[in-house]
């Protein structure tokens, strides 16, 4: 395979904890991301799992330079982007997009759906009014909404539909990389599969590369080629999806796997029996 799309090396993001009467004094640090290294090849999906608060969202933001990393390197298509200024990052933004954890909070409540999805196109200076509207309509249709939703406000949609709007917005500039930060964790179980399948289809169609985050290893397993397990800001295990799920090398991965609900009761019983020695 040729050079990977994204290489993250020794990435560190510490938040200072400040306290003080007149002048803020640093009294400690939150090590949200601590020496993380990852590689994602073109067209590949890397699943990132870990419990709530382990630093997944912070890692996503740091990779996309929405937060300035404390140290470390992020290379996108071989180009170093860690430490670029916001202005220098702007032309690169269309290549890498993000889908947010909270669908509603990530949509401006005072903008119409057409504007929200159309803005990334407008930022690239693409198309006139009618042309723009047609392309937004196409994008809405592609994610399972209707072009008639153009004039509506985000709060008029259900959670699943709001996440579809977020996906359409991320697709608009035709990016290469999509960082999906727990795209389904805030959604009802019944519609999770729909959204995950949509993302899967889009990948096949457009040759997208995903960094797919979830706290539930069961969700990640279906979509990922490889899985990275994160614990307290560090990556504790990384490897092909099946290998990590069948033969976990780290005890923390095992505990995550044990938390996944198993639909088959016999299989579940067998797993419990394997965990505790029979007869004890």
């Amino acid at each position: 395979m040729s050079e990977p799309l994204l290489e993250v090396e020794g990435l560190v993001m510490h938040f200072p904890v400040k306290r003080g009467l007149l002048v803020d004094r640093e009294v400690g640090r939150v090590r949200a991301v601590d020496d993380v290294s990852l590689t994602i090849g073109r067209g590949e999906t890397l699943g990132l799992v870990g419990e709530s608060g382990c630093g997944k969202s912070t890692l996503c933001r740091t990779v996309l330079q929405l937060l300035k990393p404390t140290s470390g390197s992020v290379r996108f298509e071989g180009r170093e982007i860690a430490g670029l200024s916001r202005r220098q990052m702007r032309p690169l933004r269309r290549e890498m997009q993000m889908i947010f954890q909270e669908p509603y909070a990530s949509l401006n409540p005072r903008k119409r759906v057409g504007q929200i999805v159309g803005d990334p196109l407008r930022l690239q200076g693409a198309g006139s009014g009618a042309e723009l509207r047609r392309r937004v309509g196409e994008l809405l249709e592609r994610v399972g909404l209707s072009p008639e939703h153009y004039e509506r406000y985000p709060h008029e949609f259900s959670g699943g539909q709001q996440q579809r709007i977020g996906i359409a917005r991320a697709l608009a500039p035709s990016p290469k990389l999509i960082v999906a930060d727990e795209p389904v964790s805030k959604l009802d179980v019944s519609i999770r599969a729909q959204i995950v399948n949509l993302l899967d289809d889009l990948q096949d169609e457009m040759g997208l590369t995903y960094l797919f985050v979830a706290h539930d290893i069961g969700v990640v397993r279906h979509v990922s080629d490889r899985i990275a397990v994160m614990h307290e800001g560090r990556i504790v295990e990384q490897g092909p999806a099946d290998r990590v799920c069948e033969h976990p090398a780290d005890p923390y991965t095992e505990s995550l796997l044990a938390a996944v609900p198993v639909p088959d009761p016999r299989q579940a019983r067998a797993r419990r029996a394997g965990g505790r020695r029979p007869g004890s």
Partner: protein
Amino acid sequence: MLAAPLWASHVAHTGPDTTHTTEKITVDGERREVVSPDGASIGPVWFGADGRFFLGADGRLGRDEMVRLMYGGRTSLLIGVAAALITTFLAVVLGLLAGYHRGWTDSVISRAMDIVWAFPVLLLGIALGTALAVGGLQIGPLSISSGSIWIPILIIGFVYTPYMARPLRGEVLALREKEFVEAAVAQGAGPLRVMFGELLPNLWSRIIVLFTLSIANNMLLESALSFLGAGVQPPASSWGAMISTGTELIYSAPLLTIIPGTMIVLTVLSLNVFGDGLRDAIDPRSRVRLEAHAGTFEPEREGA
């Protein structure tokens, strides 16, 4: 009715500054002098004189009180609205800059605001008003003569800016932490686009309420300044200035004070009610609530 001053020139039979000292009018078939030889002016004649001198004349000069009320109201409203526009423009720009950039930009803007804030509004208004009413204003090529109506407009617009900028800055500070701002940055939006494209739409309903309230406050301040002689300069008139002249005759002709005062109160009151109504109309979420009550649309989810 309160908007009548807007077309004052179409309904008035005479100019606001025209004196009718020597004229006589016919009231119910009886000839009467507008200003009697002993200096007392005619009181309200209601419909006795075909609408002329509806509210009587304003003392020794014998000017038609109703006409002055219309033109004075026009001045008061103009000052109120123009000053509110200045305040709003300054406050929105300063509030967005301070709230979005934080850091030293915020420190500079906020400290400057605090200095203006530290003076009582009326005191600052009088100080600036008297200074400028004497000397006029000269900024580069721009020069405003001392009697111009623009002087009270600029003073009032300036003096109230911190009172509007501060709540807006606070709102921006809260809004900028929302995820949709981060999403816009992730799309490649620059600071200007984030401020005016993302944050401003979320401020509109607040701005409109503050704007209408600000017109009301401006009119009150204008009255106070004009009453004290630091606002609108004669012969131009405003409701505040009319109260000021009215007080000279408060015992013989109390209506000359009460009527402009009532106009101010009514206008301020209706502006407040109007502001509230407008906020409800402009908020897309409250609109959904109304439609949902009417049974036409069931919102799938109220705001998070």
